[in-house]
């Protein structure tokens, strides 16, 4: 019994190794933040902070899935906008909140799967397909809701983005879900197919199907991030998601997920997104002027990526 357990721990340790630097940086930022704003440790403070981080965490997971797959998505931001718009348009309708939730989930899964199908079966590069997709999705969102508006019931907004850490709970559930998913053959296949598609195919992994499912889940996560943003703001905005595309890539890469696929961890990506989010608040409480914030943001990102590299080089030396 002890052998597999040790093996599991050994593997996890190896996967964490490159991330130690990031963990330390994130921990340091959280400690500084809690020191500057002790209210973070109250239920309300913790809830509000995690609510602002939550959508970024979701889109970073969505992007991490794509990168692990050996692809990338430029349609994450527009998907967030579309999710928000659909939620805001449908929740006031006859099917209410449940109908809205289902509509958002269905659209996210469908668009994701469709994109995945085009990439996997037509052998087109994900970056081009999702770029084209981003225009189409933005257009659809603008057609559905040309100006910010729509309606989200107050109780639903209060449930997700009120004074309780419901969003954080959902994030924990999602991470557990991810753990379970990569224990399934399709989930494991993501890493194999991303790292070496030909090898994975020869080992009997249904590479195309793995891709389509990963794209579908990624679309679902992005759309749900949109749903959350709609709940948080109480309405829909057809362009609110735009900045998420770049931020999702930043969070993922910061979290040590390789651009070339197959390498990286979801926990790393989540930490990357957490750093991006906590950084904004720490800079505020330190009273950085905006111009310095631009510079500091760049330095922190470069630093968080460079520190693990430097330490591993340093360690490799005799």
């Amino acid at each position: 019994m002890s052998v597999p357990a040790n093996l599991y721990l050994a593997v996890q340790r190896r996967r964490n190794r490159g991330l130690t630097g990031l963990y330390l940086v994130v921990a340091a930022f959280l400690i500084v933040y809690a020191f500057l704003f002790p209210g973070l440790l109250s239920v309300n403070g913790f809830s509000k902070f995690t609510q602002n981080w939550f959508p970024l965490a979701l889109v970073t997971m969505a992007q991490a899935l794509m990168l692990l797959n050996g692809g990338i998505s430029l349609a994450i931001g527009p998907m967030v906008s579309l999710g928000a718009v659909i939620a805001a348009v449908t929740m006031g309708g006859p099917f209410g909140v449940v109908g809205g939730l289902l509509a958002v989930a269905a659209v996210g899964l469908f668009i994701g799967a469709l994109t995945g199908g085009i990439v996997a079966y037509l052998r087109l590069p994900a970056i081009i397909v999702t770029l084209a997709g981003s225009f189409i999705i933005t257009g659809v969102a603008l057609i559905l809701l040309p100006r910010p508006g729509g309606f989200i019931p107050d109780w639903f907004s209060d449930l997700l983005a009120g004074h309780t850490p419901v969003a954080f709970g959902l994030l924990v559930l999602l991470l557990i879900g991810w753990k379970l998913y990569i224990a399934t053959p399709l989930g494991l296949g993501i890493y194999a197919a991303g790292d070496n598609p030909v090898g994975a195919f020869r080992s009997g992994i249904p590479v195309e199907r793995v891709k389509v499912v990963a794209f579908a889940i990624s679309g679902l996560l992005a759309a749900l991030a949109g749903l959350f943003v709609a709940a948080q703001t109480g309405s829909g905005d057809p362009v609110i998601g735009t900045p998420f595309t770049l931020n999702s890539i930043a969070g993922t890469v910061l979290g040590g997920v390789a651009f070339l696929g197959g390498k990286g961890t979801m926990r790393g990506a989540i930490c990357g997104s957490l750093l991006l989010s906590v950084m904004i608040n720490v800079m505020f409480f330190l009273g950085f002027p905006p111009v310095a914030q631009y510079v500091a943001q760049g330095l922190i990102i470069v630093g968080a990526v460079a520190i693990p590299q430097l330490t591993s080089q340093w360690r490799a030396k005799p």
Partner: protein
Amino acid sequence: MKLSGSLVSRSHRALLLGIAAVSMMAAGSTAASAAAKCMKGDREAPYTIGWANIYSVPTWMKQTEGTISDEVDRLKEEGLVDELMITDAQGNAQTQIQQIQSMIDANVDAIVVIAGSSNALDRVISDACEKGIAIVNFDSLVNTDNVTAKINTDSSEWGSTAAQWMVDQLGGKGKIIVMNGPAGISVSDDRRKGAQPVLDANPGLEIITETNTEYNVAPAQEAMTSLLFANPEIDGVLSLGGALSAGSVLAFDRQGREQVPTTGENARQFLELWKEKGLSGWATMQPNWLGALSVYTAVQALEGKDVPAFVKVPLPVINDDNIDSYLERADQFPADGYIYSDYDQALFDKLLAQ
């Protein structure tokens, strides 16, 4: 980034307002309430002011921030304010929510904000209002009425006044070109819509064509240059903002065409060309001191004074009579900036007494 670098100079409002501006119409009718909204009377001077900017890079924004910090410096001397906290959401409405939340966490006494989205900030701003923080929203407005005050000029009036000036200049007869900001942007739409009734009432004024470009000199000049080739007779240019007019004047100049009556905004470049080329012009502005006025309003509310829920700021007009007073001060403003009208506390008191 929602706000691309190519739209630098005047685009701030264009893009920010992109979706926002209509809300101000709704708020315009609101009468002053008995006591300033959000105020609980439990805050004491000196106050901490938070300035939640959506995007700090465009020149207009930098100038606006300048008026805010000048006003804060003045209020510091009076002992009313002790600190100004500034955030820049870099065009991201979601980040702006997070930063306003941080301001609430830091328990600032007032928040002055240009909204990145008319709806997205509603909940976080309502939260702040509930905590007794004075919220003053200007330029690009939010939907919620849970604010202490909203402050803005009227885009529709911008368009109608400009069109009326053109009608008067041309005696109601002639061929004009209308230059607009980007299509689908509310500030641009609202100004154009405001001009329409005046144009309808004066059928002698024929619109040859209209342009839609970013609020920058280069694209406007390019558009006007090709129109000049196609149209030998142009009697006026009804330009509706930003640096469009400077582009138009430059195009006329390069083609060796005689300048025609031109409307525009207070871009320094346009005002200088206007004087240099001796054309007859008219301009108005979105005054940068709306920022300073917002800080002043917030402090007034914190001091227990009543302030109107909506402060409509009349559009200052620049014409041939007073342009010299603007150009005299030109060297105090950046070359790609906007020469705004003078302001002082007396003006602010007058606006708040509406």
